[in-house]
């Protein structure tokens, strides 16, 4: 099914641009055309299909599902729902306060917020179709485990004292369920609106990601990676994680970069650690969460994620060596 994108890329270099096959430029252009078309195609389809069913999944509903469950189930439910519930990142703060107000533990709430950017259904489908199901399963399981572990630690060490005091005083009004149009026409309209919203928000990350992937693919020699980023270099994983910290991309945008790195022989653990560092830790989100978390909690949050991603990298490199 995905052959059409490869053929389109073949046609672009041979017929449309008349490039010499096998040259660096042709390789880079081929990568760019194939990945851009494939990713946007899948993105539109997945977002649209999910949009049809999605009128039923909102942060307000999620709060209702998690409220009153035992902690153990709460963590698992939080990371699963964190992966599939759409919400604008600017909703992180009201969502955090709303969850706490509903009696949901801070750790369970944080588990939800950690997993939400790392894992989502769009990234899963695109990752699966580009890099296969093994890599995808490893990525999803790892992302969810980090979320659950972070949540458990936050509750275990009673970090609720590092939540800003005013948060506990906020009382939430009666939850209003706005009327969702459940007719087919209404669902299609909603789903189409989602496509426009999400594509409008993340297309830049995809183009930048594919662009970087193309350059890596076409121009950066394999020896460079085998010399510095192989599993033999013990510093490769932490360096990859540290490099990813200040960078931010959407989970979908980082996939083409990961694809190019894997193709250059960089080990899977190093690549996943880098992906998670780029996607899971972002300066804007930290600034936003500062409104509800005291600095010590933010430091814990940042250090915990950095260490987790590094451990994950080493572990996966050993497992898949």
């Amino acid at each position, binding site marked *: 099914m995905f052959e059409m994108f490869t053929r389109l890329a073949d046609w672009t270099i041979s017929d449309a641009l008349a490039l010499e096959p096998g040259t660096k430029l042709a390789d880079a252009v081929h990568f760019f055309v194939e990945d851009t078309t494939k990713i946007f195609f899948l993105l539109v389809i997945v977002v649209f299909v999910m949009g049809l069913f999605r009128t039923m999944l909102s*942060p307000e509903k999620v709060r209702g599902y998690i409220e009153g469950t035992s902690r153990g189930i709460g963590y698992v439910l939080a990371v699963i729902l964190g992966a599939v519930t759409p919400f*604008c990142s600017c*909703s992180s*703060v009201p969502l955090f306060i*709303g969850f706490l107000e509903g009696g949901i533990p801070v750790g369970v709430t944080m588990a939800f917020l950690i997993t939400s950017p790392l894992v989502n259904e769009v990234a899963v489908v695109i990752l699966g179709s580009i890099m296969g199901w093994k890599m995808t399963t490893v990525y999803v399981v790892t992302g969810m485990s980090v979320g659950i572990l972070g949540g458990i630690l936050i509750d275990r060490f009673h970090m609720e004292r590092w939540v800003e005091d005013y948060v506990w*005083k906020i009382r939430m009004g009666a939850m209003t369920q706005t009327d969702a149009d459940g007719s087919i026409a209404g669902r299609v*309209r909603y789903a189409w609106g989602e496509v426009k919203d999400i594509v409008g928000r993340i297309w830049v990350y995809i183009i930048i990601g594919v662009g970087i992937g193309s350059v890596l693919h076409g121009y950066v020699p394999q020896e460079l990676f085998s010399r510095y980023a192989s599993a033999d270099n013990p510093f490769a994983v932490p360096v990859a994680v540290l490099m990813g910290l200040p960078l931010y991309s959407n989970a979908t945008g980082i996939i083409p970069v990961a694809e190019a790195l894997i193709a250059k022989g960089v080990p899977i653990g190093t690549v996943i650690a880098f992906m998670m560092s780029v996607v899971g830790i972002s300066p804007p989100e930290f600034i936003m969460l500062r409104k509800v978390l005291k600095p010590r909690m933010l430091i814990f949050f940042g250090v915990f994620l950095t260490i987790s991603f590094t451990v994950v990298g080493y572990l996966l490199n050993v497992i898949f060596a």
Partner: protein
Amino acid sequence: MKSFKVLGSGCKNCITTAKLIEDKAKALGVAVEIEKVTDMAAILGFGVMSTPGVVLDGKVVHAGGIPQPDKVAAWLQG
């Protein structure tokens, strides 16, 4: 005169939502008053967790994203 409140932390989607209501009101010739609510306690007081949210004459009519233009038109004409 219809009174709208747009609930949100001041992010791009919230600004877009306020502008959408303003433009539609102008196009339809309806007099409106739009207030942007950024105070978290006030937003949650309306029972809204996912922003942007829209309050029309004291009642929450929308939450969690930019509203569809025809929905906005229905609020203005209703």
